[in-house]
C-alpha cells in the first residue's frame, strides 16, 4: 500500500471513531433543551467532518484528475497547474490545508472554471435551486395532501381511482422523461410556456411540475392510507356521534393526525427534491447548484465536489432538525428533550 493509502486510512478511521463516540454519547436520555441542541450541533459538525474525509478519500482514489484531457498536456504545463492549485503537495497536507480553509468558510477556487470560487458558485446557484425546490415542495405538499384526502374520503369511487392512477404514473415516470414530455407538449406543441431558462414566472412552471410529480404522488398515497386509518379510529366516531359537521371532523380532527407521516417524510422529501433538481435543472437550463454537483465529478473538480457535498450535507442536516422541531410542535406525544415544565 502506498503512503497515500495509509494517510487515507488513518484519516478515515480517526473520523469514524470520533463520530461513533459522539453518537454513543448523544443517545443519552434526559437531556435539557440546551444540551440537546448543543449535542446535535456537535454531532452534525463531526458528521460533516466525516463526510469531508470520505469524499476527499474517494475523490482522490478514483482515476483521473482535473487536468486530464484527451490531448495530453506537456509535463511542464501540468506541473505549473499542479503547483498553482497545490496538487503536488502530499495528500495529508492538501487535506489539512482544505480543513483549515473550510473552518474559515473558504471553500477554495474551482480548478476547472478559472477565477470562480466555490463560494461564489454556491452563492449564485443555491438561491435558484432553493426557489425552484420551495415551489416544488409547496406544490407537492398542497396537491398531495388534497388529493390524498379526497381519495380517502371517496374510497373506491371514481375520484379515488383517478387520484391513485395518476399517483402511480407520477411515481413511476422518471423526472427526466416527464420533463421532456412537458417541454414537448407545452413549449413545443402548444407553445404556451417557454421551453427553458430561468427568470420569469412562466419559466418556473414546467420545472416545478416535473420536480413535484414524484413527491406529490408519494404524499397522496401516504395521506390516503393514513387518512383511511385515522377515519376508523374511535375519536372520529365520537366526533361524528357528537354531531360535528363533516368538514369540521376532517379538517380539525382527522387531518392533523393523518398528515403526521407526511411530516416524517419531509426530510427525505427535501432530499428527493434536491437530487431530483440535478436532472430537471439540466433539462430546463436552470442555473442552479444541481449541475455543479454532477459536472464537478466528471471534471474531477476537487474543490467543487467537496464544497457542494459539504453544503448539501449541512443543508440536509439543518432541514432534518427543522423537521424534528415541527414534529414536536404538532404531536405532543413526541419528545426530543425534557422540557423544563416537566
Amino acid at each position, binding site marked *: 500500500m502506498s503512503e497515500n493509502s495509509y494517510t487515507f486510512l488513518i484519516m478515515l478511521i480517526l473520523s469514524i471513531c470520533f463520530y461513533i463516540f459522539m453518537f454513543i454519547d448523544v443517545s443519552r436520555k434526559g437531556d435539557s433543551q440546551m444540551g440537546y441542541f448543543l449535542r446535535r450541533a456537535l454531532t452534525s459538525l463531526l458528521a460533516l467532518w466525516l463526510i469531508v474525509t470520505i469524499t476527499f478519500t474517494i475523490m482522490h482514489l478514483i482515476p483521473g484528475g482535473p487536468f486530464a484531457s484527451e490531448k*495530453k498536456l506537456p*509535463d511542464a*504545463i501540468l506541473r*505549473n497547474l499542479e503547483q498553482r492549485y497545490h496538487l503536488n503537495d502530499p495528500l495529508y497536507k492538501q487535506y489539512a490545508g482544505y480543513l483549515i480553509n473550510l473552518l474559515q468558510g473558504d471553500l477554495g477556487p474551482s480548478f476547472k472554471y478559472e477565477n470562480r470560487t466555490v463560494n461564489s458558485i454556491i452563492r449564485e446557484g443555491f438561491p435558484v435551486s432553493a426557489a425552484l425546490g420551495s415551489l416544488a415542495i409547496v406544490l407537492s405538499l398542497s396537491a398531495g395532501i388534497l388529493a390524498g384526502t379526497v381519495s380517502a374520503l371517496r374510497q373506491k369511487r371514481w375520484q379515488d381511482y383517478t387520484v391513485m392512477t395518476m399517483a402511480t404514473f407520477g411515481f413511476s415516470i422518471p423526472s427526466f422523461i416527464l420533463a*421532456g414530455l412537458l417541454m414537448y407538449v407545452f413549449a413545443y406543441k402548444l407553445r404556451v410556456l417557454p421551453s427553458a431558462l430561468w427568470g420569469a414566472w412562466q419559466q418556473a412552471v414546467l420545472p416545478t411540475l416535473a420536480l413535484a410529480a414524484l413527491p406529490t404522488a408519494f404524499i397522496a398515497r401516504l395521506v390516503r392510507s393514513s387518512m383511511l386509518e385515522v377515519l376508523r379510529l374511535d375519536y372520529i366516531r365520537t366526533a361524528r356521534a357528537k354531531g360535528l359537521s363533516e368538514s369540521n371532523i376532517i379538517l380539525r380532527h382527522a387531518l392533523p393526525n393523518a398528515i403526521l407521516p407526511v411530516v416524517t417524510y419531509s426530510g427525505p422529501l427535501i432530499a428527493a427534491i434536491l437530487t431530483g433538481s440535478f436532472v430537471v435543472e439540466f433539462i430546463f437550463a436552470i*442555473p442552479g447548484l444541481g449541475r455543479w454537483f454532477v459536472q464537478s465529478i466528471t471534471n474531477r473538480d476537487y474543490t467543487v465536489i467537496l464544497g457542494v457535498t459539504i453544503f448539501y450535507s449541512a443543508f440536509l442536516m439543518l432541514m432534518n432538525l427543522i423537521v424534528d422541531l415541527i414534529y414536536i410542535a404538532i404531536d405532543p406525544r413526541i419528545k426530543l428533550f425534557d422540557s423544563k415544565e416537566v
Partner: protein
Amino acid sequence: MPEGTIILQLFDGLTRYDENQEIKPAIAESWQISTDGLIYTFKLRDAKWGNGEPIKAQDFVFSWLRVLAPETASEYAYQLFYVKGAEDYNSGKGKKEDVAIKAIDDKTLQVTLEKPTPQFLGLTAFYTLFPVYEKSVQDNDNWFTDPAKYIGNGPFKMVSWEHNQKIVLEKNPNYWDAAKVRLNKLEIYLIDSVDTGFNMFKTGQLDFQEEVPVQEITAMRESKELQIAPDTSIYFYRFNVTRKPFDDVRVRKALAMAIDRKQLTDNVLMAGEKPAFAFVPFGFKDEGGKDFRQTSGNLFEENLTEAKKLLAEAGYPEGKGFPKAAILFNTSENHMKIAEAIQQMWKNNLGIEVSLESTEWQVYMDREESGDYDIARAAWTPDYLDPMSFIDLFVTDGGNNYTGWGKAAYDALVDEANSTSDQKIRMEAMRKAEMILMDEMPVMPIYFYTNANLIKESAKKVIVPPFGVFADFKYAYVE
C-alpha cells in the same frame, strides 16, 4: 466549445479566418517572414481597444509572455512553444527575457521561432495568442468574469454575463473593422442540454445552435436549417501493440480491413461523415495549395479476402484461437453504437469475438494513458491547420501516442519535416510518414467528423471555422 465562440467575438488576433477559411490580416495589417522561416515581423494597424486606447505591439508581448508565465499555468501555453525560449521559460528552465518576442516599436512585433514552423501564422488566429488588456489583467483578478472590466478588441463587447444562462454582446464601436460588423446585439445562451437547445431553436428562441442532437439529424436532413460543415477531426481506434495479438501487424491490418466504414457513416452516424482510409483528415493544404488528403488519396482499403488471409497467417484461421480482447470507450450512446457495429462486423467477417467495455470519461482517459486496454476508441482534433498536427502524434513515446508503437524511420521523417520551411520537402516527408503509419496500422481510422450546426434561414454569414467547434459572428446578420 462555447468559450471559443465567445472569445472570438470579443477579441481579434493578429490574423483572423475569413468566410473562405483563409487567414486574413486583422490587428496586423501585414507581415514578413524571413527566408529561413524563423523570423516573423508583424506590422500592426491603427487599431484600438474597446476603451479607445491604441493597441500596441507591447500588448502582444505582454499577453504572450503572460500565457507562458509558469504562474499563469495556462493549459494552452504549448501553442507558443514554437517561439524561441518559450518552452524553457514555461517549464522554469529559462528566463522571461530570453523569450524571442519583441516590440521593435509601438506598431512592430517581431517573433523568432525555434524551428521553421509554417503553421505558426495560423496559430495567431487562435485565441491563446489573442492580446489581453494589460491594466484590466493587473488590476483585477476577476476581470474576465466582470463585464464592466472586460476590455477586448474584437467586433463585439460584453454587456452582461449571467453565469450558466446568457451572455449579452453589443457591437464594439472602437473595433478597427466596425464598418463590416452588421449585428448590433448578440445574445449567447449557455445551455448544457443539446436537446433543450434544439427545442429552443425549433420554437424560434434561437437563430443558431452549435451541435445538433444525434437523433434529430436524420429528420433534419432535408431542412435548409441543418448546416453540415466539414471538420478536420478523425475518429479512430488505437491498438495496444504491446499486447497479444495486437503486437502482430497482420492482425491489426486484418481488423482494419474487415469493417464496413460506409455502412457506419450512412446508417449509424448519418451526419454526412466521411469514411476514413488514412489518418490525416480532409481540409489541409499541401505545397501546391491542394487538399493534402485528396492528393495523397486512400492509403488502405477494405478487403475481406485479404483480411482473412492475414488473420490466418497470424495464426488465427477463421478467427480460431483469437485471444480475448475488449474495445474500451467512454460511456456515450454514439461510441456504444459504433462499437457494437464494429463488434458485429468482426464477428461476421472474421469470426472473432471482442467484448465491449464502457467506462466513465476520466477512467477511460486514465486507462488509455496507462496502456491498460486492448483496443480503445479515440479522436483527434488538430491544434493548427497543418497535417503535422496529426503526424507527430505517433513519434516513438509521443505524449499522445498511447499505442506503444514506434518506428525510427517514422521519427526521422517527422524530424525532417519539422526542420525545414520548404513546403515541398515537408509535405513529402509527411506523406511518407503517413504511409508508414497506415502500413503498420497501430491505429485504425474509422471516419472523419463533420461539424453540424443549426441555423435559421434568415441568419446569414455565420462563419464556422474548419477546426475547433466554434462560430464567428463578425460578419453575421439577420434578414
